[in-house]
């Protein structure tokens, strides 16, 4: 069994290291320097192995510490003070939820697919050794933090030591139950698609975790000790059952090859592609009387209304409701006036992030690629400069108009709210609010489309291959996110933002017109 574990660990490590080397090679400019033979470079393999071990260590501890920290924080939020009994109570109950959602055994992962289906490893040995390793990681992951808690938070040391063991016992009990269920019904569960009963169980557990202390029912260290003993007995029983279970091979064949599990075999891009393909709607009346580019674009918009126009309309309705609520609140409670007025005059940078979130550029360009350009770019006529620019123009119109619909509600809503909350001495503020929001909306539309045309990041297999595109996407996010923290007078910020949008858009459009005929092609 140890041999099976070592083999599977080596296998996992090999593709992890290869993934790391692959990602390093994907950075801009680096690819040209590093040769393909890199995969057999020993030094790099060692480096990859070190990173891989680090990932393993971080994976062991990071999740646990985050969980414990948020648990402690939630205690402060809900009960205003920290009490060890609260901690034991909530941890005891939430661990059951964790056990249900995170079984390891019923999680169809790539590791398992490679080892069991592709490599045909001994299913029982593979499963048991890796399962016990995962439990060991749970134990080791929790122990140091629990001991720390016992020092700093008055948690009794014996409880601190028992809690991680309790988690392991719970996990085994849940798995044993699922195995029993499989034996009885011949249907293996998939932990990533929890059943309704599991969801209801989780909600009840959450309610009990945080609700019971309000009615002074708390699982304290004494009750916990009692629960622990029961879990220990059931856990040991479950351990024997799990250990002696024989049908792992059959079970995993079902889990790893059933249609719903196809996702494992496919990479993310294939799933995205399938989903985008599903978005095509066809009714007999969706035709177009236009010609050429406009014809293609109109049909594209009509056949993708679910992700294009309909979702923009949904956004618009939600924004209208929010605006209505804001207006009613102002009317009902005049005390709000001052603060809202202040927000409108200093929080405009925040709206950069909101406009970023509202813009559907990424989704739309993705659909454009997957359902349209992916195929048409293989035809030479579609790559002639006149066609590329003709389509670009049509798409620009579409993207801008789709995004302007929800944006216009904000653009009209903000000055309206400013007026209703007492107005401003500088009347330009009204205009600036309106114009800057519209400018931002147009800016994002142009930004995404130009990025798409200049970097065309997708390969023939619809994977994103351009790391530059990823970097630009990440930068866009971080810059917009950074804006959240800025407090600047609306007038100046709005003016600057509008100017920036205009200049950026002009430059981007010139670049697109000059370069797109060369850059807009399939990556092979």
């Amino acid at each position, binding site marked *: 069994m140890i041999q099976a574990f070592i083999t599977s660990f080596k296998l996992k490590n090999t593709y992890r290291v290869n993934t790391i080397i692959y990602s390093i090679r994907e950075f801009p400019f680096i690819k040209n320097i590093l040769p393909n033979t890199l995969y057999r470079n020993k030094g790099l393999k060692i480096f990859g192995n070190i990173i891989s071990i680090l990932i393993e260590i971080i994976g062991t501890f990071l999740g646990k510490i985050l969980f414990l920290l948020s648990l402690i924080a939630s205690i402060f939020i809900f009960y205003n003070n920290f009490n060890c009994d609260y901690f034991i109570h909530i941890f005891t109950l939430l661990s059951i939820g964790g056990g249900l959602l995170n079984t390891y055994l019923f999680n169809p992962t790539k590791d398992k697919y490679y080892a069991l289906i592709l490599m045909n490893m001994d299913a029982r040995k593979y499963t048991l050794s890796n399962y016990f390793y995962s439990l060991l990681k749970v134990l080791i992951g929790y122990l140091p933090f629990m001991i720390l808690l016992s020092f700093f938070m008055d948690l009794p040391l014996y409880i601190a030591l028992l809690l991680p063991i309790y988690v392991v016992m719970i996990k085994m009990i849940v798995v044993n139950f699922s195995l029993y269920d499989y034996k009885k019904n011949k249907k293996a569960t998939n932990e990533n698609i929890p059943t309704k009963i599991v969801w209801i169980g989780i909600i009840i557990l959450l309610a009990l975790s945080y609700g019971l202390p309000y009615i002074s029912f708390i699982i304290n260290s004494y009750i916990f000790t009692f629960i622990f003993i029961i879990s220990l007995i059931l856990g040991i029983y479950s351990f024997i059952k799990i250990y002696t279970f024989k049908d792992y091979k059959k079970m995993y064949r079902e889990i790893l090859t059933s249609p719903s599990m196809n996702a494992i075999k496919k990479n993310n891009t294939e799933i995205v592609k399938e989903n985008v*393909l599903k978005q095509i709607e066809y009714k007999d009346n969706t035709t177009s009387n236009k010609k050429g*580019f406009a014809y293609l674009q109109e*049909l594209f918009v009509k056949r993708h209304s679910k992700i294009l126009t309909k979702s923009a309309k949904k956004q618009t309705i939600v924004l209208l409701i929010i605006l209505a609520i804001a207006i009613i609140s102002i009317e009902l409670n005049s005390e709000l006036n001052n603060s809202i007025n202040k927000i409108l005059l200093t929080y405009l940078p925040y709206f950069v992030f909101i406009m970023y979130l509202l813009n559907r550029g990424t989704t739309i360009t993705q659909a454009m690629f997957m359902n349209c350009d992916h*195929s048409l770019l293989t035809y030479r006529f579609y790559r002639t400069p006149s066609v590329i620019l003709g389509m670009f123009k049509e798409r620009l119109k579409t993207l801008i108009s789709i995004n302007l619909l929800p944006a216009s509600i904000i653009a009209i809503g903000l000055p309206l709210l400013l007026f209703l909350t007492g107005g401003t001495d500088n009347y330009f503020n009204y205009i600036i609010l309106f114009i800057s929001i519209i400018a931002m909306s147009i800016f994002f539309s142009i930004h995404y489309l130009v990025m798409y045309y200049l970097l065309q990041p997708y390969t023939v297999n619809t994977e994103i291959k351009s790391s530059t595109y990823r970097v630009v996407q990440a930068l866009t996010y971080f810059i917009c996110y950074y804006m959240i923290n800025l407090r600047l007078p609306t007038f100046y910020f709005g003016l600057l933002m509008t100017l920036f949008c205009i200049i950026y858009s002009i430059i981007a459009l010139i670049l697109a017109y000059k370069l797109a005929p060369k850059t807009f092609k399939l990556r092979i």
Partner: protein
Amino acid sequence: MKLIIKNLTKSFDTKKVLQNINFTFEKGKIYGLLGRNGAGKTTFFNCLNEDLEVDSGEFYIEDKEKRELDYDDIGYVLSTPNVPEFLTGREFLKFFIDINEDKIKNKKTIDEYFDFMKIDTEDRDKLLKDYSHGMKNKMQMLVNIIANPNILLLDEPLTSFDVVVAEEMKEMLKSIKKDHIIIFSTHIMELALDLCDEIVILNHGTLELIDHTNLNTKQMKNKIIEALKEE
């Protein structure tokens, strides 16, 4: 008209896929491009179609005088057919004809084109997403033929067709060959021998024309196998 390739070289990292290719393809002939798996047939097509940049060398058309290849000189039919899935067959053709209106000679009606490619009436207004693999391939072939490009690159085009359609396509290719240079890549030697006027082998990154004068089919087959086996 000739397609002339001079010193064409293409490598991926350190692997030289195409090495100094020199070859002349002539109008009126169907060339069967044979090569073993991974020999570089698709890379060769991708280079000609300018999907991949070549490392060195050039290719051009010689038609009275030398000129560079234009966008509409090449039609490229891929082994996996790619069609815009959100359009119907008819809409795809309409869009294509709209865009290329001034380039299409002897323009026919959309239904005439469908008839030419033997696409059934009931399939013409279906979304391409619901077409079978073979039907998509027919559409792809049709769109590439309507514009009447001088050079047709066909990458394993007949493998997805059933025997009847494959036979129809073979006849169709023979009927249009007099005005085109057709380069046809395939693994299937019988198909190449049956359809093609010339057999070209891509081996070790170079193109070699197999001389078939005074050879019967069996001798020709042996010669091809020997050529492909050469290390």
